[in-house]
């Protein structure tokens, strides 16, 4: 082991930790303070200390509870679809005996590199009721056209699909790495014993892939839970509040209505939810192992 002196160690980590401390500790302290104050950005002098009043207000706020539910629903649905489709693609991409696989393995990376806002913009074009490609296909196969972004049920789901388009590749390449790192013996043994596709998948591949799936779900969930960009340009929470997630609602309260204090209180709740969910998830996956 290389021996680094304490002086070197602390001076080497100093720049990074000073930045993180200044840009994390202070804002965290500030957001907690604001959450206890009725503070409007437009009238900073009229702020007053109200203890936990705004937290109580948030939980009594139907729009807040709805947004929390929408965020959870968006994240769960997106993660689930991403994982299932991603796994199927990983199995396809694993067939490196086929010619041209290099091309497909590169193509799959493209969606992750595209600016999320641009993804939202092009999906908005494709979802249009009158001239969108998606509705053109739906009409051609003889189904009723769907007002994707104008319908309270469809708006959020349309955004989920855009998210799935962008992030399924993430699940696919991570699972592909997992599949390729898998030992060959158990699979060959299973094939010799005449195990079917589902049996092999369920009792051999899944247990071996569990750590990889665990990481994918955790990272994807945290990302999907706070998704903002695509929702902003696709629906901005509409129609009405039907697709309004926490990120959108907190942004509205804090940056459109300038209710800084209330936005901060809801943000703190959001942090708590993420913390509780990720801790719970990590514990759960540890007990399962």
């Amino acid at each position, binding site marked *: *082991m*290389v021996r*680094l*002196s304490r002086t*070197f*160690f602390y001076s*080497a*980590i100093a*720049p*990074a*930790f000073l*930045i*993180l401390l200044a840009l*994390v500790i202070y*804002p*965290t302290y*500030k*957001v907690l303070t*604001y959450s206890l104050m009725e503070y409007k*950005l437009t009238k900073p002098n009229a702020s007053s200390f109200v203890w936990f009043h705004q937290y109580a207000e948030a939980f009594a706020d139907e729009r807040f509870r709805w947004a929390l539910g929408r965020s959870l629903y968006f994240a769960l649905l997106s993660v689930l679809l991403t994982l299932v489709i991603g796994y199927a*693609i990983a199995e*396809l991409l694993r*067939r490196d005996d*086929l010619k041209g696989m290099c*091309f497909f393995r590169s*193509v*799959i990376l*493209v969606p992750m*590199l*595209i*600016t*999320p*806002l*641009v993804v939202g*913009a*092009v999906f908005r*074009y*494709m979802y249009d009721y009158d001239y969108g*490609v998606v509705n*053109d296909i739906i009409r051609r196969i003889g189904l009723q056209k769907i007002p994707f972004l104008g319908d309270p049920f469809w708006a959020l789901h349309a955004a989920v699909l855009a998210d799935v*388009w962008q992030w399924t*590749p*993430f699940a696919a390449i*991570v699972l592909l790495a997992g599949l390729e790192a898998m030992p060959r013996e158990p699979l060959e043994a299973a094939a010799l014993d005449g195990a079917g596709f589902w049996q092999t998948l369920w009792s051999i591949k899944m247990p071996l892939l569990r750590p990889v799936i665990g*990481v994918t779900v955790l*990272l994807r969930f945290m990302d999907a*839970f706070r998704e*903002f*960009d695509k929702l*902003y340009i696709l629906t901005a929470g509409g129609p009405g509040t039907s697709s309004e997630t*926490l*990120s959108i609602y907190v*942004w509205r309260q*804090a*940056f459109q209505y300038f209710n800084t204090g209330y936005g901060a209180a809801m*943000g*703190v709740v*959001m942090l708590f939810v*993420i*913390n509780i969910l990720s801790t719970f998830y990590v514990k759960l996956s540890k007990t399962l192992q």
Partner: protein
Amino acid sequence: MAGKRLERYLVYLALVLMAVVVLFPLALMFRISLIEPKHFFDVPVSWFAPVTVDHYRHVLIDSPFPKYLANSLIVSLATTAIVMFAGTLAAFALARHRAKNKDGLLFFVLSTRMGPPVVFAVPMYVMMINMNMIDSRLGLILLNTFANLAFAIWLMYGFFKDTPPEVEEAAMLDGLGEFGVFTRISLPMVTSGLVATATLVFIMTWNEFFYALIMTRDVAKTFPAQVPSFFGAFAVDWGGMFAASWLGILIPLIFGMAVRKYLARGLTMGFTQ
């Protein structure tokens, strides 16, 4: 044999379908960016309509868009430079030092990346107002630095851990100082990791939208924050929007493909190799 052949065709068919789903939106954007406005609303899309470069000319010459692209470049480069400097040093120290509190430090680093931007944006916005940094590139660089530092530290930590410390030990025995070991021995060993990490930080900063939306107006506005402005009150300038979009996604697309070997590892922050 016939069964195997059929299976192969089915796999290819599925792969081609996947490629179409992935590439179609990009092709559509590209076609619309080169089409006359009267064809915006054609059903089906007029793939063979005459080509016009009017939208690109408009966006590049008659609009402030080049300024926003330049801002994107400045902010992304500066962020990448700061993040890589501070992040690599810290990662090296953490990877090579036996400190009792190391795990705690690493966890603290990770935790700074867990919070949603919208939450931190609330106090940051007030801070930026007080420091007079609304609509300033410096403010945006600070925010992006904060957003990406944890990522860079974790990733570089993994890359340093992958290299054997023996070479460094030998160099130290030969009397090279710690900083000399870092710059002359350790850094050259992780060059590809360094390039990959820097590229990913650059891409993430380039694609960042939320902070740009709330913190910038015009002077420091970056390209993603300009895209929504093509939605007019009465009509959408799809051609202009997709021309601007294509200009904007070109750099992350090229850079990302250049480091595609590292994408899985990078995007899981080093959790998968």
